């Protein structure tokens, strides 16, 4: 997962919406755990579009 630091509002919308509970937010940036199955839900609902699915080579 790619987080655009400049866009992230640290609001936690991604954390509570993650069906895998794979996202953790300290008071700076969300981090993604191994449980992330790249479902893309957080990408869609981030209010400011700060998240992108990383394209695997």
């Amino acid at each position, binding site marked *: 997962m790619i987080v655009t630091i400049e866009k992230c509002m640290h609001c*936690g*919308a991604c954390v509570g919406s993650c069906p895998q*509970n794979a996202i*953790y937010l300290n*008071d700076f940036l969300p981090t993604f755990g191994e449980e992330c199955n790249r479902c893309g839900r957080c990408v869609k609902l981030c209010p*400011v579009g700060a998240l992108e699915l990383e394209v695997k080579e």
Partner: protein
Amino acid sequence: MRRECDVLVVGGGPGGSLAARYAAEAGADVLMIEKRPEIGAPLRCAEGISRAWLDEVGIAVDRKWVAKTVDGAKLVSPSGKTFYVDEKMAGNEVGIVLERHLFDKAMAASAARAGAEIMLKTSATGVVKEGEKVVGVTASSFGEPMSIDAKCVIAADGYESQVARWAGMDTKLKMNDITTCFQYRLTGIDIEHMYCEFHIGTAAPGGYVWLFPKDEDTANVGLGILASKLNDPGEVKGYLDSFIKKNERFAKGQPVEAIAGAVSVSPPLDETTMDGMMLVGDAARLIDPITGGGIAHACLSGMYAGKVAAKGLEANDLSKDFLQEYETLWRDRLENKLWRNWMAKEKLITITDEQFDVIIETLDEAGVDKMSVYNLLKVIKERLPDLVKEFEDLI
């Protein structure tokens, strides 16, 4: 670092603070941890509340945390038709627009006064269980790892609701039950500052645009959109920007704050207790699915949880069985309304802009003497039985 307490409250919002306060008042050794370095900040709230429930939870109105009182509400349809509910004229209690950062601090201060300890910049990182029983959490305090042993954990960690999930409960939400929000505090705008405004329709699909006055020319202007109605990333902010741009009243407005967030608009959880743990407020999904409001419910459930925790300590029993008293208390008080409003929300998200215009016109003709979702639905059911057949079972 390791420490012990009777009651550990995770989260320093109003739900957590009320839980901490009522447990401490009853003599428990209470620790409340908050992951942010400041209680009440950053803001993630439109800040409007009704006054009706404050006495019930033992909160005395303090001008320090009241930004503004309002006389009532104004509903605006997609084509601009309006409907006013004037609470003051009807002799009802008026609404309050809060200074949330001060309100939350005042709630935490009452918890502290009752004897609760507060730790800031301390976030839970996991739940510790013995068998099925929750016995504490692992945490990080100013970057220092620690573990906290507790006889009872009260999870007041808000929308994120991670503590419950770490403990093995299912707090997952459907996309139809999540609203994603963005808000500016706009100043220098032309507003009717005695009313909170609600704009319904496709300006905010599946949700609404709100305008809650903070003073004569400043308001929280924001919107929530149902996650299942979103298509592109970042759309939520885009919807608000275009709503503001289209509205002449905001032409001279400037933002002094921008916030984002999400809120559940789901039914409440089937279970909010397990051995050694209770969930309160947003963490238990106690948000009104129509308004997205949750402060009253957080305070009520927090109070109940704090009291039940203290009773459990006295009885030396914090089993799930014992904690059923908490489950019963909040369900008796809130559950019917939460379920009814969730069912009503499921219908409302299917209504078109043209239908909303008819509904607002009808409400304006019929009048409602007290602003509540129930009263509004009742009028709609009586006056527009064909349009909203589905409301039949809800009233």
